[in-house]
Protein backbone atom coordinates (compact mmCIF):
# COMPACT_ATOMS: atom_id res chain seq x y z
CA UNK A 1 0.00 0.00 0.00
CA UNK A 2 1.47 3.16 -1.12
CA UNK A 3 1.77 6.15 1.08
CA UNK A 4 0.14 9.33 -0.04
CA UNK A 5 2.59 12.08 -0.97
CA UNK A 6 2.06 15.35 0.77
CA UNK A 7 3.52 18.40 -0.94
CA UNK A 8 4.02 21.69 0.57
CA UNK A 9 2.51 24.85 -1.03
CA UNK A 10 5.99 25.73 -2.38
CA UNK A 11 6.38 22.30 -3.89
CA UNK A 12 3.02 22.45 -5.64
CA UNK A 13 3.95 25.85 -7.05
CA UNK A 14 7.27 24.49 -8.33
CA UNK A 15 5.57 21.61 -10.14
CA UNK A 16 3.00 23.92 -11.69
CA UNK A 17 5.75 26.20 -12.92
CA UNK A 18 7.66 23.26 -14.37
CA UNK A 19 4.55 22.04 -16.17
CA UNK A 20 3.87 25.48 -17.58
CA UNK A 21 7.45 25.85 -18.76
CA UNK A 22 7.38 22.43 -20.38
CA UNK A 23 4.17 23.29 -22.24
CA UNK A 24 5.67 26.54 -23.49
CA UNK A 25 8.88 24.76 -24.47
CA UNK A 26 6.88 22.08 -26.30
CA UNK A 27 4.89 24.65 -28.20
CA UNK A 28 8.00 26.56 -29.16
CA UNK A 29 9.81 23.45 -30.31
CA UNK A 30 6.75 22.44 -32.34
CA UNK A 31 6.80 25.79 -34.09
CA UNK A 32 10.50 25.44 -34.77
CA UNK A 33 9.94 22.00 -36.24
CA UNK A 34 7.31 23.10 -38.75
CA UNK A 35 6.75 20.50 -41.43
CA UNK A 36 8.07 21.34 -44.87
CA UNK A 37 5.41 22.02 -47.50
CA UNK A 38 5.78 19.78 -50.54
CA UNK A 39 4.18 20.72 -53.82
CA UNK A 40 5.61 17.66 -55.54
CA UNK A 41 4.10 17.34 -59.04
CA UNK A 42 2.46 20.73 -58.71
CA UNK A 43 5.83 22.40 -58.58
CA UNK A 44 6.34 22.81 -62.39
CA UNK A 45 3.08 24.78 -62.60
CA UNK A 46 3.04 28.51 -62.49
CA UNK A 47 -0.75 28.55 -62.81
CA UNK A 48 -3.04 25.71 -61.83
CA UNK A 49 -6.79 26.18 -61.66
CA UNK A 50 -9.66 24.04 -60.44
CA UNK A 51 -12.60 24.92 -62.65
CA UNK A 52 -11.17 27.29 -65.28
CA UNK A 53 -8.22 29.52 -66.00
CA UNK A 54 -8.98 32.69 -67.95
CA UNK A 55 -6.68 35.34 -69.29
CA UNK A 56 -7.11 38.77 -70.81
CA UNK A 57 -4.31 40.59 -72.60
CA UNK A 58 -0.60 39.91 -73.09
CA UNK A 59 0.13 37.92 -69.97
CA UNK A 60 3.38 35.98 -69.74
CA UNK A 61 3.57 32.66 -67.90
CA UNK A 62 7.00 31.22 -67.28
CA UNK A 63 6.07 27.74 -66.13
CA UNK A 64 3.39 25.16 -66.79
CA UNK A 65 -0.28 26.01 -67.09
CA UNK A 66 -2.99 23.59 -66.05
CA UNK A 67 -6.54 23.05 -64.93
CA UNK A 68 -8.30 20.13 -63.24
CA UNK A 69 -10.97 18.91 -62.76
CA UNK A 70 -12.24 21.65 -65.09
CA UNK A 71 -11.03 21.76 -68.65
CA UNK A 72 -11.26 25.38 -69.78
CA UNK A 73 -8.12 27.39 -70.45
CA UNK A 74 -9.38 30.59 -72.01
CA UNK A 75 -7.42 33.44 -73.57
CA UNK A 76 -3.96 31.91 -73.86
CA UNK A 77 -3.45 32.48 -77.56
CA UNK A 78 -1.62 35.57 -78.73
CA UNK A 79 -0.87 38.05 -77.33
CA UNK A 80 -0.46 35.87 -74.22
CA UNK A 81 2.70 33.80 -73.89
CA UNK A 82 3.00 30.49 -72.06
CA UNK A 83 6.59 29.38 -71.71
CA UNK A 84 5.77 25.94 -70.43
CA UNK A 85 3.54 22.93 -70.94
CA UNK A 86 -0.25 23.10 -70.89
CA UNK A 87 -2.35 20.48 -69.14
CA UNK A 88 -6.14 20.58 -69.39
CA UNK A 89 -7.57 18.00 -67.01
CA UNK A 90 -5.07 15.39 -68.03
CA UNK A 91 -3.26 13.00 -65.73
CA UNK A 92 -0.55 15.51 -64.95
CA UNK A 93 -3.01 18.20 -63.92
CA UNK A 94 -5.09 15.78 -61.85
CA UNK A 95 -2.04 14.53 -59.98
CA UNK A 96 -0.87 18.10 -59.47
CA UNK A 97 -4.24 18.95 -57.91
CA UNK A 98 -3.91 15.99 -55.53
CA UNK A 99 -0.42 17.12 -54.52
CA UNK A 100 -1.66 20.68 -54.18
CA UNK A 101 -4.33 19.49 -51.76
CA UNK A 102 -1.69 17.69 -49.71
CA UNK A 103 0.55 20.76 -49.67
CA UNK A 104 -2.41 22.97 -48.81
CA UNK A 105 -3.31 20.80 -45.83
CA UNK A 106 0.28 20.63 -44.62
CA UNK A 107 0.52 24.40 -44.79
CA UNK A 108 -2.80 24.78 -42.98
CA UNK A 109 -1.59 22.49 -40.22
CA UNK A 110 1.65 24.32 -39.48
CA UNK A 111 1.90 25.17 -35.78
CA UNK A 112 1.76 28.88 -35.15
CA UNK A 113 3.23 30.62 -32.14
CA UNK A 114 0.72 32.89 -30.38
CA UNK A 115 2.84 35.90 -31.19
CA UNK A 116 2.51 35.09 -34.88
CA UNK A 117 -1.26 35.45 -34.93
CA UNK A 118 -1.65 38.55 -37.05
CA UNK A 119 -5.43 38.55 -37.17
CA UNK A 120 -6.83 42.02 -37.60
CA UNK A 121 -3.57 43.57 -38.69
CA UNK A 122 -2.34 44.61 -42.12
CA UNK A 123 0.60 42.78 -43.63
CA UNK A 124 1.86 45.96 -45.24
CA UNK A 125 4.94 47.80 -43.97
CA UNK A 126 6.08 44.84 -41.88
CA UNK A 127 9.26 42.82 -41.80
CA UNK A 128 8.79 39.18 -40.84
CA UNK A 129 11.31 36.43 -40.24
CA UNK A 130 10.91 32.76 -41.10
CA UNK A 131 8.01 30.89 -39.55
CA UNK A 132 4.29 30.32 -39.72
CA UNK A 133 1.81 33.17 -39.38
CA UNK A 134 -1.93 32.97 -38.96
CA UNK A 135 -5.02 34.96 -39.77
CA UNK A 136 -8.19 33.54 -38.29
CA UNK A 137 -10.19 35.68 -40.69
CA UNK A 138 -9.18 37.56 -43.84
CA UNK A 139 -5.79 39.13 -44.53
CA UNK A 140 -4.99 42.40 -46.23
CA UNK A 141 -1.70 43.57 -47.74
CA UNK A 142 -1.33 47.28 -48.41
CA UNK A 143 2.16 48.40 -49.31
CA UNK A 144 5.35 46.37 -48.98
CA UNK A 145 5.73 43.22 -46.87
CA UNK A 146 9.36 42.28 -46.29
CA UNK A 147 10.32 38.68 -45.60
CA UNK A 148 13.78 38.37 -44.06
CA UNK A 149 15.50 34.97 -44.28
CA UNK A 150 18.39 36.23 -42.14
CA UNK A 151 20.87 34.51 -44.40
CA UNK A 152 19.18 31.10 -44.36
CA UNK A 153 18.29 30.10 -47.91
CA UNK A 154 16.07 27.30 -46.57
CA UNK A 155 13.97 29.66 -44.49
CA UNK A 156 10.29 28.85 -44.89
CA UNK A 157 7.45 31.31 -44.54
CA UNK A 158 3.90 30.02 -44.23
CA UNK A 159 0.82 32.23 -44.05
CA UNK A 160 -2.32 30.46 -42.88
CA UNK A 161 -5.26 32.62 -43.80
CA UNK A 162 -8.67 31.35 -42.83
CA UNK A 163 -10.64 33.24 -45.44
CA UNK A 164 -9.66 35.79 -48.12
CA UNK A 165 -6.35 37.39 -49.01
CA UNK A 166 -6.52 40.77 -50.71
CA UNK A 167 -3.72 43.09 -51.78
CA UNK A 168 -4.10 46.76 -52.55
CA UNK A 169 -2.80 48.30 -55.75
CA UNK A 170 0.99 48.54 -56.03
CA UNK A 171 1.56 46.34 -52.99
CA UNK A 172 4.63 44.14 -52.91
CA UNK A 173 6.21 41.16 -51.21
CA UNK A 174 9.91 41.86 -50.85
CA UNK A 175 12.39 39.10 -50.05
CA UNK A 176 15.70 39.90 -48.44
CA UNK A 177 18.77 38.19 -47.04
CA UNK A 178 18.46 35.02 -49.06
CA UNK A 179 14.71 34.50 -48.86
CA UNK A 180 13.36 32.50 -51.77
CA UNK A 181 9.90 32.83 -53.28
CA UNK A 182 9.98 29.04 -53.63
CA UNK A 183 9.81 28.75 -49.84
CA UNK A 184 6.97 31.18 -49.21
CA UNK A 185 3.50 29.58 -48.94
CA UNK A 186 0.21 31.38 -48.79
CA UNK A 187 -2.59 29.06 -47.71
CA UNK A 188 -5.84 30.91 -48.34
CA UNK A 189 -9.10 29.47 -47.00
CA UNK A 190 -11.30 31.04 -49.65
CA UNK A 191 -10.16 33.33 -52.46
CA UNK A 192 -7.22 35.60 -53.17
CA UNK A 193 -7.23 38.86 -55.10
CA UNK A 194 -4.05 40.66 -56.10
CA UNK A 195 -4.57 44.34 -56.75
CA UNK A 196 -3.38 46.24 -59.79
CA UNK A 197 0.42 46.14 -60.29
CA UNK A 198 0.98 44.16 -57.10
CA UNK A 199 4.40 42.48 -57.14
CA UNK A 200 3.66 39.26 -55.31
CA UNK A 201 6.06 36.49 -54.37
CA UNK A 202 5.50 32.99 -53.11
CA UNK A 203 3.23 30.04 -53.69
CA UNK A 204 -0.35 31.23 -53.54
CA UNK A 205 -2.59 28.25 -52.70
CA UNK A 206 -6.29 29.10 -52.52
CA UNK A 207 -9.16 26.77 -51.74
CA UNK A 208 -11.46 28.56 -54.17
CA UNK A 209 -10.39 31.16 -56.72
CA UNK A 210 -7.51 33.52 -57.43
CA UNK A 211 -7.84 36.80 -59.32
CA UNK A 212 -4.94 38.90 -60.54
CA UNK A 213 -5.86 42.41 -61.50
CA UNK A 214 -4.29 44.35 -64.32
CA UNK A 215 -0.51 44.38 -64.26
CA UNK A 216 -0.01 42.28 -61.13
CA UNK A 217 3.02 40.01 -61.19
CA UNK A 218 3.86 36.84 -59.32
CA UNK A 219 7.21 35.25 -58.70
CA UNK A 220 6.22 31.82 -57.52
CA UNK A 221 2.98 30.01 -58.30
CA UNK A 222 -0.74 30.63 -58.45
CA UNK A 223 -2.61 27.47 -57.50
CA UNK A 224 -6.38 27.25 -57.02
CA UNK A 225 -7.88 24.00 -55.78
CA UNK A 226 -11.57 24.28 -56.69
CA UNK A 227 -12.29 27.54 -58.43
CA UNK A 228 -10.95 29.60 -61.26
CA UNK A 229 -7.79 31.59 -61.80
CA UNK A 230 -8.29 34.82 -63.73
CA UNK A 231 -5.44 36.85 -65.18
CA UNK A 232 -5.27 40.31 -66.77
CA UNK A 233 -1.98 41.43 -68.32
CA UNK A 234 0.16 39.66 -65.74
CA UNK A 235 3.66 38.28 -65.58
CA UNK A 236 4.03 35.05 -63.63
CA UNK A 237 7.31 33.30 -63.19
CA UNK A 238 8.27 30.15 -61.36
CA UNK A 239 11.49 29.57 -63.27
CA UNK A 240 13.57 29.58 -60.11
CA UNK A 241 11.28 27.10 -58.37
CA UNK A 242 10.77 24.43 -60.99
CA UNK A 243 12.84 21.94 -59.08
CA UNK A 244 10.91 22.76 -55.98
CA UNK A 245 11.58 24.79 -52.91
CA UNK A 246 14.52 23.88 -50.76
CA UNK A 247 12.24 22.89 -47.96
CA UNK A 248 9.63 21.13 -49.90
CA UNK A 249 10.00 19.37 -53.15
CA UNK A 250 13.23 17.58 -52.92
CA UNK A 251 15.05 19.85 -55.26
CA UNK A 252 17.93 22.05 -54.39
CA UNK A 253 16.21 25.34 -55.20
CA UNK A 254 18.24 28.40 -55.78
CA UNK A 255 17.72 30.03 -52.46
CA UNK A 256 18.85 33.40 -53.67
CA UNK A 257 15.71 34.65 -55.25
CA UNK A 258 15.07 37.59 -52.98
CA UNK A 259 15.05 40.99 -54.51
CA UNK A 260 17.54 42.17 -51.99
CA UNK A 261 20.10 39.47 -52.67
CA UNK A 262 20.05 38.29 -56.24
CA UNK A 263 22.76 35.85 -57.21
CA UNK A 264 24.28 35.71 -60.66
CA UNK A 265 23.27 32.06 -60.96
CA UNK A 266 19.52 32.61 -60.78
CA UNK A 267 17.35 33.14 -63.82
CA UNK A 268 14.33 34.88 -62.40
CA UNK A 269 14.29 37.87 -64.71
CA UNK A 270 11.12 38.64 -66.61
CA UNK A 271 10.12 41.41 -68.92
CA UNK A 272 7.18 42.43 -71.06
CA UNK A 273 6.68 45.55 -73.12
CA UNK A 274 3.50 47.54 -73.40
CA UNK A 275 2.57 50.61 -75.33
CA UNK A 276 0.61 53.42 -73.84
CA UNK A 277 -2.58 54.76 -75.38
CA UNK A 278 -2.60 57.61 -77.83
CA UNK A 279 -5.10 60.35 -77.37
CA UNK A 280 -4.78 61.49 -80.94
CA UNK A 281 -3.24 60.33 -84.20
CA UNK A 282 -0.67 63.07 -84.12
CA UNK A 283 0.44 62.28 -80.60
CA UNK A 284 3.21 59.90 -79.82
CA UNK A 285 2.96 57.26 -77.13
CA UNK A 286 5.11 55.67 -74.49
CA UNK A 287 6.51 52.17 -74.60
CA UNK A 288 7.22 50.65 -71.21
CA UNK A 289 9.08 47.51 -70.22
CA UNK A 290 8.06 45.98 -66.93
CA UNK A 291 9.18 42.88 -65.12
CA UNK A 292 11.65 41.60 -62.58
CA UNK A 293 15.37 42.03 -62.16
CA UNK A 294 15.72 44.27 -65.17
CA UNK A 295 19.14 45.83 -65.36
CA UNK A 296 18.99 47.81 -68.56
CA UNK A 297 16.68 48.36 -71.53
CA UNK A 298 17.77 49.75 -74.88
CA UNK A 299 14.89 50.90 -77.07
CA UNK A 300 15.19 51.11 -80.85
CA UNK A 301 12.81 52.23 -83.54
CA UNK A 302 13.54 50.68 -86.94
CA UNK A 303 17.05 49.92 -85.74
CA UNK A 304 17.80 53.42 -84.48
CA UNK A 305 18.39 53.80 -80.76
CA UNK A 306 15.78 56.01 -79.14
CA UNK A 307 16.34 55.29 -75.48
CA UNK A 308 18.65 53.66 -72.94
CA UNK A 309 17.21 53.15 -69.47
CA UNK A 310 19.16 51.79 -66.52
CA UNK A 311 16.56 52.25 -63.83
CA UNK A 312 12.82 52.09 -63.48
CA UNK A 313 10.68 53.25 -65.15
CA UNK A 314 12.06 51.59 -68.27
CA UNK A 315 10.07 53.80 -70.58
CA UNK A 316 10.59 55.72 -73.78
CA UNK A 317 8.42 58.11 -75.71
CA UNK A 318 7.81 57.11 -79.31
CA UNK A 319 6.86 59.90 -81.61
CA UNK A 320 4.14 59.37 -84.20
CA UNK A 321 6.16 59.02 -87.36
CA UNK A 322 4.69 58.30 -90.78
CA UNK A 323 4.41 54.71 -91.87
CA UNK A 324 4.87 51.35 -90.22
CA UNK A 325 7.57 51.01 -87.60
CA UNK A 326 9.18 48.37 -85.48
CA UNK A 327 9.86 49.14 -81.84
CA UNK A 328 12.37 46.85 -80.15
CA UNK A 329 13.54 46.74 -76.55
CA UNK A 330 16.68 44.82 -75.67
CA UNK A 331 16.45 43.82 -72.02
CA UNK A 332 19.35 42.67 -69.87
CA UNK A 333 18.86 41.37 -66.35
CA UNK A 334 20.57 41.64 -62.99
CA UNK A 335 20.82 37.87 -62.59
CA UNK A 336 21.78 35.16 -65.06
CA UNK A 337 18.57 35.41 -67.07
CA UNK A 338 19.42 35.49 -70.75
CA UNK A 339 18.92 38.88 -72.37
CA UNK A 340 15.80 39.13 -74.49
CA UNK A 341 14.49 41.38 -77.21
CA UNK A 342 10.86 42.45 -77.08
CA UNK A 343 9.17 44.02 -80.07
CA UNK A 344 5.97 45.34 -81.55
CA UNK A 345 4.94 47.08 -84.71
CA UNK A 346 2.99 50.27 -84.89
CA UNK A 347 1.91 52.59 -87.58
CA UNK A 348 0.66 56.09 -87.35
CA UNK A 349 -2.88 56.53 -88.52
CA UNK A 350 -3.46 58.39 -91.72
CA UNK A 351 -4.25 61.70 -90.13
CA UNK A 352 -0.91 61.69 -88.38
CA UNK A 353 0.90 60.90 -91.53
CA UNK A 354 0.00 63.02 -94.40
CA UNK A 355 -0.90 66.55 -95.02
CA UNK A 356 0.82 67.22 -98.31
CA UNK A 357 2.60 70.51 -98.58
CA UNK A 358 1.66 72.98 -101.21
CA UNK A 359 3.75 72.90 -104.32
CA UNK A 360 3.79 73.77 -107.99
CA UNK A 361 2.15 71.67 -110.68
CA UNK A 362 5.00 70.78 -113.00
CA UNK A 363 3.97 67.25 -113.80
CA UNK A 364 3.44 65.89 -117.28
CA UNK A 365 -0.32 65.92 -116.95
Amino acid at each position, binding site marked *: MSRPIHLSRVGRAAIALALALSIIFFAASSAAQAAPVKLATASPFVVLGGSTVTNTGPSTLNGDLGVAPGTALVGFGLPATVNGATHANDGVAKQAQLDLTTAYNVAAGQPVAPANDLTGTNLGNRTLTAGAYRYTSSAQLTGPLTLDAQGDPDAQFVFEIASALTTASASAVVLINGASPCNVYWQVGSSATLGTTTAFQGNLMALTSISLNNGASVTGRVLARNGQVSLINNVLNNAGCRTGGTSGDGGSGDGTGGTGNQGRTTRNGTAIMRRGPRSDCTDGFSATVRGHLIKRVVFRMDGRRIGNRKKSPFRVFVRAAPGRHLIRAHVTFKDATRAKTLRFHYRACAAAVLEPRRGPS*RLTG
Partner: protein
Amino acid sequence: MTRIVAVAAGLLTAATGCVLATPARADSTVRASQPLVVLLHDHIARTRPTLRAPRIEAVGSLRPLTRVRTVLPVLGRAARGSWVKVRLPGRPNGHTGWIRTWQTRPAQTEWQIRVKLSTRQVVVFRDGRVARRFRAVVGTPWTPTPRGRFFVEEAIALSSGDHGGPFALATSARSEVLQEFDGGPGQIGLHGTNHLAGALGTAASHGCVRVSTAAITWLAGRIGSGVPLTIAS
Protein backbone atom coordinates in the same frame (compact mmCIF):
# COMPACT_ATOMS: atom_id res chain seq x y z
CA MET B 1 -34.52 50.82 -98.07
CA THR B 2 -31.93 48.35 -99.28
CA ARG B 3 -32.55 49.48 -102.84
CA ILE B 4 -32.06 53.15 -101.88
CA VAL B 5 -28.76 52.33 -100.20
CA ALA B 6 -27.64 50.32 -103.21
CA VAL B 7 -28.53 53.11 -105.60
CA ALA B 8 -26.76 55.66 -103.42
CA ALA B 9 -23.67 53.50 -103.30
CA GLY B 10 -23.75 53.09 -107.05
CA LEU B 11 -24.05 56.82 -107.58
CA LEU B 12 -21.20 57.47 -105.18
CA THR B 13 -19.02 54.96 -106.98
CA ALA B 14 -19.81 56.51 -110.31
CA ALA B 15 -19.11 59.99 -108.99
CA THR B 16 -15.76 59.15 -107.48
CA GLY B 17 -14.59 56.65 -110.03
CA CYS B 18 -13.60 54.50 -107.11
CA VAL B 19 -14.14 50.78 -107.17
CA LEU B 20 -14.08 49.55 -103.63
CA ALA B 21 -11.95 46.52 -103.17
CA THR B 22 -13.44 43.20 -102.44
CA PRO B 23 -12.66 42.12 -98.90
CA ALA B 24 -8.93 42.44 -98.35
CA ARG B 25 -7.16 39.93 -100.51
CA ALA B 26 -3.51 39.05 -100.32
CA ASP B 27 -1.29 39.28 -103.36
CA SER B 28 1.67 36.99 -103.02
CA THR B 29 3.77 39.19 -105.29
CA VAL B 30 3.32 42.28 -103.11
CA ARG B 31 5.39 42.57 -99.97
CA ALA B 32 3.66 43.42 -96.72
CA SER B 33 6.08 46.22 -96.08
CA GLN B 34 8.84 48.01 -97.88
CA PRO B 35 11.93 49.24 -96.07
CA LEU B 36 12.77 52.85 -96.76
CA VAL B 37 15.59 55.20 -96.00
CA VAL B 38 15.13 58.87 -95.18
CA LEU B 39 17.99 61.12 -96.25
CA LEU B 40 19.02 63.59 -93.58
CA HIS B 41 21.84 64.96 -95.73
CA ASP B 42 22.73 65.11 -99.41
CA HIS B 43 24.21 61.83 -100.60
CA ILE B 44 26.25 60.48 -103.48
CA ALA B 45 24.86 57.37 -105.13
CA ARG B 46 27.50 54.94 -106.36
CA THR B 47 27.51 51.83 -108.51
CA ARG B 48 28.89 49.64 -105.75
CA PRO B 49 28.94 49.84 -101.94
CA THR B 50 32.35 51.38 -101.65
CA LEU B 51 33.67 54.91 -101.72
CA ARG B 52 35.98 53.96 -104.59
CA ALA B 53 33.08 52.94 -106.83
CA PRO B 54 32.06 55.25 -109.69
CA ARG B 55 29.57 57.89 -108.77
CA ILE B 56 26.11 57.78 -110.33
CA GLU B 57 24.64 61.05 -109.16
CA ALA B 58 24.07 63.30 -106.19
CA VAL B 59 20.80 62.81 -104.33
CA GLY B 60 19.54 65.83 -102.46
CA SER B 61 18.08 65.43 -99.00
CA LEU B 62 15.02 67.50 -99.96
CA ARG B 63 12.60 67.05 -102.83
CA PRO B 64 12.44 69.94 -105.28
CA LEU B 65 8.72 70.71 -105.31
CA THR B 66 7.72 70.74 -101.65
CA ARG B 67 11.12 70.57 -99.88
CA VAL B 68 10.18 67.48 -97.88
CA ARG B 69 12.81 64.92 -96.94
CA THR B 70 13.88 62.54 -99.67
CA VAL B 71 12.71 59.01 -98.96
CA LEU B 72 14.01 56.13 -101.08
CA PRO B 73 12.98 52.46 -101.24
CA VAL B 74 15.69 50.13 -99.95
CA LEU B 75 16.38 47.22 -102.28
CA GLY B 76 19.24 45.60 -100.39
CA ARG B 77 22.02 46.00 -97.89
CA ALA B 78 25.71 45.47 -98.25
CA ALA B 79 27.14 42.48 -96.43
CA ARG B 80 29.95 44.67 -95.21
CA GLY B 81 29.92 48.31 -94.37
CA SER B 82 27.02 50.64 -93.90
CA TRP B 83 25.57 50.81 -97.37
CA VAL B 84 22.10 50.29 -98.76
CA LYS B 85 20.98 49.78 -102.32
CA VAL B 86 18.20 52.18 -103.20
CA ARG B 87 15.98 53.05 -106.11
CA LEU B 88 16.81 56.50 -107.42
CA PRO B 89 14.54 59.18 -108.82
CA GLY B 90 14.68 60.41 -112.40
CA ARG B 91 16.24 59.17 -115.58
CA PRO B 92 16.97 56.55 -116.60
CA ASN B 93 13.70 55.20 -115.29
CA GLY B 94 14.03 52.69 -112.46
CA HIS B 95 17.77 53.08 -111.99
CA THR B 96 19.37 52.12 -108.71
CA GLY B 97 22.52 52.86 -106.73
CA TRP B 98 24.26 52.47 -103.39
CA ILE B 99 24.34 55.12 -100.69
CA ARG B 100 25.87 55.15 -97.23
CA THR B 101 23.60 54.89 -94.21
CA TRP B 102 25.45 57.77 -92.58
CA GLN B 103 23.03 60.68 -92.07
CA THR B 104 19.97 58.58 -92.90
CA ARG B 105 17.08 57.24 -90.91
CA PRO B 106 15.41 53.89 -91.58
CA ALA B 107 11.67 53.73 -92.11
CA GLN B 108 9.05 51.42 -93.57
CA THR B 109 5.83 51.67 -95.46
CA GLU B 110 2.99 49.22 -95.66
CA TRP B 111 1.59 50.83 -98.82
CA GLN B 112 2.25 49.95 -102.44
CA ILE B 113 0.64 51.13 -105.64
CA ARG B 114 0.20 49.30 -108.92
CA VAL B 115 -1.02 50.87 -112.12
CA LYS B 116 -2.45 48.45 -114.66
CA LEU B 117 -2.35 50.17 -118.03
CA SER B 118 -4.43 47.59 -119.86
CA THR B 119 -7.34 47.85 -117.46
CA ARG B 120 -6.60 51.51 -116.63
CA GLN B 121 -6.78 50.85 -112.97
CA VAL B 122 -4.83 51.98 -109.94
CA VAL B 123 -4.64 49.28 -107.28
CA VAL B 124 -3.53 50.26 -103.80
CA PHE B 125 -2.12 47.63 -101.45
CA ARG B 126 -1.72 47.84 -97.71
CA ASP B 127 0.16 45.14 -95.84
CA GLY B 128 0.22 43.15 -99.07
CA ARG B 129 -3.54 43.19 -99.43
CA VAL B 130 -5.69 45.13 -101.82
CA ALA B 131 -7.03 48.21 -100.06
CA ARG B 132 -8.61 50.13 -102.96
CA ARG B 133 -9.00 50.09 -106.74
CA PHE B 134 -9.55 53.26 -108.72
CA ARG B 135 -10.35 53.82 -112.37
CA ALA B 136 -7.78 55.98 -114.08
CA VAL B 137 -6.77 57.88 -117.17
CA VAL B 138 -3.42 56.74 -118.54
CA GLY B 139 -1.10 58.00 -121.26
CA THR B 140 -1.99 57.99 -124.93
CA PRO B 141 -0.11 55.66 -127.30
CA TRP B 142 1.97 58.70 -128.37
CA THR B 143 2.77 59.86 -124.85
CA PRO B 144 2.65 56.56 -122.99
CA THR B 145 2.86 56.09 -119.28
CA PRO B 146 6.28 54.49 -118.71
CA ARG B 147 6.35 50.94 -117.41
CA GLY B 148 8.61 49.78 -114.62
CA ARG B 149 9.27 50.05 -110.90
CA PHE B 150 9.23 53.50 -109.38
CA PHE B 151 8.29 55.24 -106.16
CA VAL B 152 6.47 58.30 -104.91
CA GLU B 153 8.90 61.17 -104.49
CA GLU B 154 6.54 63.61 -102.81
CA ALA B 155 2.88 64.43 -102.34
CA ILE B 156 1.72 67.89 -103.33
CA ALA B 157 -1.32 69.93 -102.43
CA LEU B 158 -2.12 71.88 -105.58
CA SER B 159 -3.89 75.19 -105.85
CA SER B 160 -7.51 75.23 -106.92
CA GLY B 161 -6.55 76.71 -110.25
CA ASP B 162 -3.86 74.12 -111.02
CA HIS B 163 -4.47 71.44 -113.59
CA GLY B 164 -4.76 68.00 -112.05
CA GLY B 165 -5.69 69.14 -108.56
CA PRO B 166 -6.49 69.00 -105.78
CA PHE B 167 -3.51 66.72 -105.04
CA ALA B 168 -0.69 65.07 -106.91
CA LEU B 169 1.77 62.31 -106.12
CA ALA B 170 4.99 63.15 -107.93
CA THR B 171 6.75 59.92 -108.82
CA SER B 172 10.28 58.94 -109.71
CA ALA B 173 9.15 58.05 -113.23
CA ARG B 174 9.93 60.31 -116.18
CA SER B 175 8.24 60.39 -119.55
CA GLU B 176 10.09 58.45 -122.23
CA VAL B 177 8.81 60.96 -124.82
CA LEU B 178 8.61 64.36 -123.18
CA GLN B 179 11.98 65.36 -121.81
CA GLU B 180 10.44 68.54 -120.49
CA PHE B 181 6.86 69.58 -119.78
CA ASP B 182 5.44 72.77 -118.29
CA GLY B 183 8.77 73.77 -116.80
CA GLY B 184 9.36 70.36 -115.26
CA PRO B 185 11.53 67.39 -116.29
CA GLY B 186 8.66 65.38 -117.78
CA GLN B 187 7.89 63.97 -114.36
CA ILE B 188 5.08 61.44 -114.18
CA GLY B 189 2.51 61.93 -111.46
CA LEU B 190 -0.67 60.48 -110.07
CA HIS B 191 -3.05 63.35 -109.77
CA GLY B 192 -6.64 64.48 -109.96
CA THR B 193 -8.71 65.66 -112.86
CA ASN B 194 -9.30 69.36 -112.08
CA HIS B 195 -9.44 71.40 -115.27
CA LEU B 196 -8.48 68.38 -117.37
CA ALA B 197 -10.47 66.60 -120.04
CA GLY B 198 -10.56 62.82 -120.51
CA ALA B 199 -12.89 60.27 -119.01
CA LEU B 200 -11.78 57.79 -116.42
CA GLY B 201 -10.90 54.48 -118.02
CA THR B 202 -9.40 56.02 -121.17
CA ALA B 203 -5.90 56.61 -122.50
CA ALA B 204 -5.85 60.38 -122.82
CA SER B 205 -3.02 61.84 -120.71
CA HIS B 206 0.51 62.98 -121.51
CA GLY B 207 1.82 60.11 -119.44
CA CYS B 208 0.52 60.92 -115.98
CA VAL B 209 -2.09 58.80 -114.28
CA ARG B 210 -5.24 60.69 -113.45
CA VAL B 211 -7.82 59.56 -110.95
CA SER B 212 -10.97 61.13 -109.61
CA THR B 213 -10.90 63.92 -107.06
CA ALA B 214 -12.19 61.59 -104.36
CA ALA B 215 -9.55 59.02 -105.23
CA ILE B 216 -6.60 61.43 -105.21
CA THR B 217 -7.84 62.93 -101.96
CA TRP B 218 -7.93 59.46 -100.44
CA LEU B 219 -4.46 58.69 -101.78
CA ALA B 220 -2.94 61.98 -100.65
CA GLY B 221 -4.06 61.31 -97.11
CA ARG B 222 -2.24 58.00 -97.03
CA ILE B 223 0.52 57.69 -99.56
CA GLY B 224 3.75 59.33 -98.51
CA SER B 225 7.22 59.67 -99.90
CA GLY B 226 8.98 56.44 -100.74
CA VAL B 227 5.90 54.33 -101.41
CA PRO B 228 6.72 51.85 -104.20
CA LEU B 229 4.89 52.25 -107.50
CA THR B 230 4.75 49.60 -110.19
CA ILE B 231 3.42 50.44 -113.62
CA ALA B 232 2.67 47.39 -115.72
CA SER B 233 0.79 46.48 -118.82
